[in-house]
Structure formats: C-alpha cells, structure tokens
C-alpha cells in the first residue's frame, strides 16, 4: 500500500505560508485570517487521516465459461476506517471486458462498511485469463491523503471457444475395430444393408433373405455394414497467426477444433490432438466427456511460439497418430513446415484433410501498384498450393467467407470424386 499526500497539501501549504508571511510583512491581520482556514484544514486533515484498511476481492460464480457468454461476478469491498471517496479500478486482461456494470467506480464507506457490487464480465476470445487484479485509491474526508493499493488477482477464468453449428462432419475413409456410429465399409454384423450372398454353414438363420432365396431357388443371406468408431487427430498449426481487427486464424482454428472435437466425441469416436508449431503439444486419442475437456483445455494453451528451426512429423510420437486415423489439419496454409508435415503424413498413408482457415480476407491488398501485384501473386500461389495438396489426395476445406459446414462439404465432394488419388 502507498500513502501519499494529495495535491491539496502542497497547494494549501503554499497559500497558508504566503498569507502568513504577507500578513506579517504588510501588517494586515486580514491576510492571516484569509490564510488561517487553509492552515486549519491542513492541520486538522493530516492529523485525522488514518489508513482506512480497505480490502477488495473479486469473486466469480464460475471458473469456466464460453466466449461471449456472461460471467456473473461480485466485487466485495470492506473498509475499517472512513473513506470519503474510494476509487476502484478493475484491471482486466485483454480479452475480458465488463458486459454489465463498470470496471471503474467510486464509493463512500463508513468504518466497518462492507459492500458487494455485482458485475458481469464477458470473454471476447477463448483463452485462460487471470482475473481479479483490482487497484484502489482511498481518500480521507478532507481529501488530503491518498492511499493506493493493488490487490492481485487469484482467479483463473477459462473461456472455451464458442460453439459452431455442425450437422454433418467428415467421415474417415476407414473405421476402427470398436463399435461406434460410423457405418464401416467392411461387411459384418450391423444394421445397414450391404449385399446378399449364398448361404454358407455357420450363417445365422435370421440373416436369411427369404424373398431373395425364393426367387433364386437357393438360400441367400443378407450382408450388412457394421457400425464402428473412428480415430480423429486434430492437427493444429501454431507456427503462424494472421491477425485481423476482429479475428485471427489461430483463434478460428481453435474454435473449429473445439467444435469438431465435440461433434466427433458425441459419435463415440476417439479424438487426439497435435499442436504443431514452436512448441509441440499432443494428447493421446481418447473418448468421452473427460477427453473433450482435456482437448479443449490443451487447445486453450495454444499460442504462437516463434521458431526458425525446421520441424517435421518425426517429432510426433507414433502412438499419437494411430493407423487409419483421419488427420484434420487446422491451418492457414502459410508456414512451409506445416504444409510439408501435411504432405508427409499423406505420404505415410494417413487420411489427411486440411481445414484452411483462410487468411486472405485478413490481409489488405495494399494501395500501391506493387503491393496490389504482390497480393494477387500471393493469392495465385495459394491456389497453386491448394491444387498441389489436392493432387496428393489431401482434401482442402477452405473456411473463410463460407461457414465451416459448407467448407467441409467441399471436402466430402472432393473425396467422393477423387478416391483414386495415389501418392
């Protein structure tokens, strides 16, 4: 805590001193009478000023929220002494703002007063925030002395990415061995009808197709597709982050990753994560609600850590990338290391799809002819890159002006007509 005199002390001291000296020099008692109130205010005010012992605490009703959702909080203020004017400033980190109420306010407190001030916060971007830093400035009744204090925040508020509506998601080309919601291409016990074949000893009687058997004059049985689960690996590009005024590619990539992870986990698929950038983060594929929280909280830690060293997929532990897994790259397709990693994974036989968080709308075209020409060349280079990746069999979902679901539909169409692509 810092105790300091307000500007009044110096000002009144100067006025009182000049008044008293002038009264003596000019032999005019009226000047001493004019100076006296300033001196009296100073003497009485500084004598009576006591540390009010202010205590401020911010309490949150939750430590987890979603982007743009309201978080109810309460600011509890206590004072042991009298405070004529208590200025409170809630020092919020970038990304957190006050939705209802005010981050700075003044109060008047009597000795022993305790006030609870409701306040509503809102996180404008996903992330982990340290909330609760409060600065106070208390003034005594004559406002001669100021006590300034800073209360350090103790709350960690986790803001999860906002939901993105996805009715249909991408199905991997191959399924795993466990039961799930994805209709497998293999034939086995299941619900979805696949084909008919001749009866062989060991087939169950209930699988006999009596109508087909009557037409064929021999016993035939129905074959079905089993429902299996799939493995998905979210492959997040954290080499670069192209930032605009209200959005950034990394923020959107994490939002998309969160939405996709949620939808796949709802289908009982196993979802893993690789954060590929300056810092390599990974999470083993898993399923269930716990895995969903693990995934999202790991993605919240994602940030751009600049590095100039070359990184490739050899750094990723083999268990993180199970065979037949669908690798969903979430990337602005800018850093050559990530593009090389996608090509490398495809070359190793993984089913790879790149959700391209389009950085083109975030980059200004420029005003000069050279800048505009460079911009057009850069856009053309990106077209070439996309064509090259699609030639390798990597589906590209270009997520910019379109919504994510429509962008994924592009990949579905691509995979429907480009199955014969070979690496």
């Amino acid at each position, binding site marked *: *805590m*810092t*105790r*300091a*005199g*307000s*500007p*009044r*002390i*110096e*000002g*009144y*001291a*100067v*006025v*009182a*001193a*000049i*008044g*008293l*000296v*002038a*009264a*003596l020099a*000019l032999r*005019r*008692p*009226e*000047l*001493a*009478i*004019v*100076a*006296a*109130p*300033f*001196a*009296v*205010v*100073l*003497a009485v005010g*500084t*004598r009576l*000023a006591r*540390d009010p012992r202010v205590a401020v605490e911010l309490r949150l009703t939750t430590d987890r929220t979603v982007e743009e959702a309201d978080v109810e909080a309460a600011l509890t203020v206590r004072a042991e002494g009298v405070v*004529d*004017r208590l*200025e409170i*400033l809630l020092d919020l980190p970038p990304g957190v703002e006050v939705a209802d109420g*005010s981050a*700075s*306010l*003044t*109060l*008047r407190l009597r000795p022993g007063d305790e006030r609870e001030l409701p306040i509503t916060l809102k996180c404008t971007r996903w992330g982990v925030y340290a909330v609760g830093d409060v600065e106070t400035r208390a003034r005594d009744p004559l*406002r*001669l*002395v100021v006590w300034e204090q800073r209360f350090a925040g103790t709350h960690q508020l986790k803001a999860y990415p906002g939901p993105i509506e996805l009715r249909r998601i991408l199905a991997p080309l191959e399924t795993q061995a466990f039961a799930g919601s994805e209709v497998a291409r293999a034939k086995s016990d299941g619900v979805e009808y696949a084909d008919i074949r001749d009866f062989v000893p060991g087939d169950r009687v209930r699988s006999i197709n009596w109508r087909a058997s009557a037409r064929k004059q021999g016993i035939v049985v129905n074959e079905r597709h089993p429902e299996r689960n799939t493995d998905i690996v979210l492959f997040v590009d954290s080499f670069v982050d192209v930032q605009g005024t209200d959005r950034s590619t990394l923020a959107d990539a994490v939002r998309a990753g969160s939405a996709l992870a949620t939808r796949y986990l709802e289908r009982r698929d196993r979802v893993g994560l690789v954060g590929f950038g300056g810092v390599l983060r990974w999470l083993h594929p898993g399923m269930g609600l716990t895995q969903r929280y693990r995934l999202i909280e790991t993605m919240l830690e994602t940030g751009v850590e600049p590095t100039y060293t070359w990184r490739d997929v050899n750094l990723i532990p083999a268990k993180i990338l199970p065979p037949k897994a669908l690798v969903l790259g979430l990337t602005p397709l800018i850093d050559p290391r990530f593009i090389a990693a996608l090509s490398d994974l495809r070359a190793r036989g993984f089913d790879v799809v790149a959700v391209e968080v389009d950085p083109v709308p975030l980059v200004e075209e420029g005003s000069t002819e050279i800048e505009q020409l460079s911009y057009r060349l850069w856009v053309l280079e990106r077209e070439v890159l996309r064509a090259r990746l699609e030639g390798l069999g990597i589906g590209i979902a270009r997520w910019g002006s379109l919504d994510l679901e429509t962008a994924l539909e592009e990949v579905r169409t691509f995979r429907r007509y480009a199955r014969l692509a070979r690496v």
Partner: protein
Amino acid sequence: MALPVTRASDSLQPVEIRVAAAGLVVLLAALVLGWSPLIPVAIVLVAGDYAAQLTIDDARLDSAAPAFAGGLLVTAELAYWSLEERSDVRGEPGAGFRHAAFLAGLGVATILVASLLLALVDAVRTRGLAIDLLGSAAAAAALFAIVLAAHGQGRTGH
C-alpha cells in the same frame, strides 16, 4: 474573486481587474490542463489583489475578510474536486450532492471561524515589538507545522 474588484477605487480598478482576470485565467488553465499546481497560483494571485487593496486603502479592519477567506477556500476545494472528477469513474448516485453539501458546510464554518478570529483581532488590537515578535514566532511555528505535516504525507508503508 470579484470582491477586490468591486471594492477597488476608480484609479486602481483597471489593475485590480487585470490581476483578478489573470487569476481566473490561471484557474481555468489548471482545470482545462488538469494541472493542479496552478490552483494555488490562482488563489495567491487573487489573494494578492486583495492584499494590495488593503494596503493601499489602509482601512482599519476589513469586515469582509471572513467571506473572502471562505470564498477562496471553497473555490480551491471546487477546483481540486473538479480535477478529481476528470477520471472516467462511475460515481455513486448522490455522491456529488453530498460533497457539494460538505463544501457548503465547510464554507460556512470557515466564515464563522474567520469571523471569530476577526473579532478577536479587533478586541486585542495592539502594536509594538513584543506583539510583532509573538506574531512572527506564531507564523514561523505555523509554517513549520505545515511543512512537517506535508512532509509526513509522502511516506510509503505497507
């Protein structure tokens, strides 16, 4: 601020007006620029105007001194209050009225105390070396106490 101007003799009035106007300009500058050290400068300018008028007129005892003292103190308080309110801080409802009432009370109390002092000075008005020495000692003690009090506020504690 208007008090010295309204009571000035015709020959002195232009000078008094200029000094009072200078005080007003300095006070406005303090408020506009948000620079508090200009406030005592404005107060001293107006008080100096008043002191010059008293010295030149050489009146016996000015009965308007308490009102002038109260006016100056309230002016200074209002100016400092204005600077405090410059920050974009939401105040409690009624806080402004409460402080205004406090300042009005402070002004009235100042006038009362100053009137008592004036009456005391009028009753025991005397001259001589002893009373001059006593006055000087009292003024020095008052200044010393003010300096001590002001110095003590700058310390930092936990």
